[in-house]
């Protein structure tokens, strides 16, 4: 019987081990997942400056105090400057006054009824126009938007407090409340405005409108070397399945005389790039609100307008009296001319390359003297965002909220390397600044300085862009596919020494995406 006695002890010890190993294995699998899940939670209210990792881009700075907005701008010796002080001159009277009433209601577009948003009873909202140098004052009243709204002036480098980002530059305009935006229209060109509270849903639902700034001297802007007979906005927006220009589906007519030129301001308010092409030659006179230097006529090429971006086209009505067809996306077109429109033309296979379009001109700064170099590398990986598992967009390998906080000081020349290996295109939008494209995929820019605030970065592409940090504050730098932004594809550009009293989440329910 002796051989039996040691065996039970071995069996008991073995049984314990057989219990420990699987429990340990299960814990080994579950614990890291639990940690990642927990770290993805952002809590009920958090500040944009306290999330993410500070990136000083190899330039001066790096104190925790500077990043968290506890100290003021370097050299001032004062405490952090709240961005609420970054406003247009409060003593200056407004030159252009606009009153907007925002409502959440059903809208009817192209025979289709859906839930949406209106400004002054219409979507898109009214086009705001101003002359360069005028002070624009927009008073917004929230009549019925349940989750509140803001207005962001897309492409206008406004003072930070007017940027309209809920939870960063302001609290959202609550139900029944008012807010006034004031900014000087310094830049001449085509812009648009849209809500930046729950922006994915509100912009898709039509809480947006156009903003046009014309040069001093009156009259419509020129198209390079010739005056225009008509200056129209073609704001493209998809309401549900209905694609529209200025809220109307199908073709829109610009009845100019034969041989006359129209300036068509194409604004893409959707979540992805659109192709634009024409049955007769067109000239791209402005990109993202900046004039192109010595543009040439384009034939047999389509131009890409990315999400949030604008292209101003000069199109001449054919001399034979027919109308040129400027196709904007697959479903809508602008007909320039009085006569019969050209039959729909297939989208050309070749794309207009803005990298080499137009003639070079001097830049206002020297990129070789850059003091900051940042990387914005877009990818995709499994993980948790806001506690939800999935395969999410990453920035420099990290998921929201551990996204980069690009730190700069006023006066810095910044170079940013934007690359995309995520499998989908991302239209990248930087608030408050315009950047010039230096190169794409290693090929240097040779055309007119390509200034952008919304850059279409395709899968496999990389861009090197440069800008000057000349507009202090805390600025979003995010994908303008707003669904992606709501999934965490958001970073910030923050000037050292500035703080924000606002929080994302919190009692106001600020939710910029």
């Amino acid at each position: 019987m002796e051989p039996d006695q040691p065996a039970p002890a071995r069996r008991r010890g073995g049984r314990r081990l057989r219990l420990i190993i699987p429990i340990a294995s299960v814990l080994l699998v579950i614990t890291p997942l639990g940690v990642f899940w927990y770290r993805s939670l952002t809590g009920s209210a958090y500040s944009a400056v306290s999330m993410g990792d500070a990136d000083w881009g190899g330039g001066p700075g790096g104190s925790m105090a500077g990043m968290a907005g506890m100290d003021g701008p370097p050299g001032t010796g004062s405490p952090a400057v709240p961005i609420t002080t970054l406003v247009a001159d409060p003593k200056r009277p407004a030159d252009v006054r606009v009153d907007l009433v925002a409502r959440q209601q059903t809208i009817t577009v192209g025979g289709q009824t859906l839930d949406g948003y209106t400004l002054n009873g219409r979507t898109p909202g009214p086009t705001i126009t101003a002359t360069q140098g005028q002070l624009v004052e927009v008073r917004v009243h929230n009549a019925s938007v349940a989750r509140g709204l803001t207005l962001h002036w897309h492409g206008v480098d406004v003072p930070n407090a007017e940027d309209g980002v809920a939870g960063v530059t302001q609290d959202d305009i609550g139900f029944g409340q008012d807010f006034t935006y004031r900014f000087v229209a310094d830049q001449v060109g085509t812009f648009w405005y849209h809500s930046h509270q729950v922006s994915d849903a509100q912009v898709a639902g039509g809480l947006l409108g156009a903003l046009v700034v014309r040069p001093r001297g009156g009259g419509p802007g020129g198209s390079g070397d010739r005056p225009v007979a008509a200056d129209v906005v073609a704001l493209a927006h998809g309401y549900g399945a209905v694609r529209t220009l200025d809220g109307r589906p199908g073709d829109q007519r610009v009845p100019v005389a034969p041989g006359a030129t129209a300036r068509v301001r194409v604004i893409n308010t959707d979540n992805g790039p659109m192709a634009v092409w024409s049955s007769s030659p067109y000239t791209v006179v402005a990109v993202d609100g900046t004039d192109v230097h010595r543009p040439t006529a384009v034939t047999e090429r389509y131009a890409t307008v990315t999400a949030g971006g604008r292209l101003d086209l000069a199109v001449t009505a054919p001399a034979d009296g027919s109308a040129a067809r400027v196709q904007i996306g697959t479903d809508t077109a602008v007909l320039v001319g009085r006569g019969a429109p050209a039959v729909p033309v297939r989208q050309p296979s070749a794309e207009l390359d803005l990298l080499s379009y137009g003639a070079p001109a001097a830049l206002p700064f020297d990129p070789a003297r850059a003091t900051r170099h940042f990387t914005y590398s877009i990818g995709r990986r499994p993980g948790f965002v806001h506690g939800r598992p999935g395969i999410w967009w990453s920035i420099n390998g990290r998921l929201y909220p551990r996204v980069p906080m690009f730190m700069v000081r006023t006066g810095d020349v910044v170079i940013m390397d934007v690359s995309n290996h995520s499998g989908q295109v991302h239209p990248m939008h930087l608030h408050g600044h315009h950047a010039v494209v230096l190169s794409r995929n290693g090929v240097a820019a040779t055309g007119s300085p390509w200034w952008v605030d919304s850059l279409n970065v395709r899968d496999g592409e990389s861009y090197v862009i440069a800008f000057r940090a000349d507009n202090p504050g805390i600025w979003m730098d995010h994908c303008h596919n707003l669904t992606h932004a709501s999934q965490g594809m958001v970073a910030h550009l923050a000037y050292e020494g500035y703080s924000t009293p606002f929080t994302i989440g919190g009692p106001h329910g600020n939710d910029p995406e």
Partner: protein
Amino acid sequence: MRIVYRVLGYLIAALVAVQAAAVAYGFFSLGKYIEGGGSIDQAAMNNPNFTFPGVEGLAVHGMFGTMVVPGVALLFLIVGIITQVTTKIRGALLWSVITLVVTVVQVALGLGAHSVPQLGMLHGIVALGLFAVAFMAAHRIGRASAPTTVEAAPARSAEPVAG
């Protein structure tokens, strides 16, 4: 635990079938939409309010593929660990690991195909493999006789111990 293991294994196989059905339905719906005069570009594809009848097939395929199937496969692994220990059925853990690995490969192929569409061909074939692996893992457990150890014990105790 054997029952849970089998349910999860068959569930993964069923989800693969759901994935195939959803993407085929979505793709044919897209074709019908275009045939009917509709058009689609990147801006439309990314519009949260843009729909055509059957678009939910594509949405389901994406969502299930990145969240549901990997989640169930991970759960299958955990259950596989527990099943291996409690029932001692040979291969219970191994087959759940294989299923998870094939799932990971399948998801990676699906994501990579956005950049390199040729990977989509492999994605289609590996789906069949994943179905087979998950089905077999569950099926084996049903047929396997756990008493490999249970039979031995009575035999041992019945036999008189030789000196």
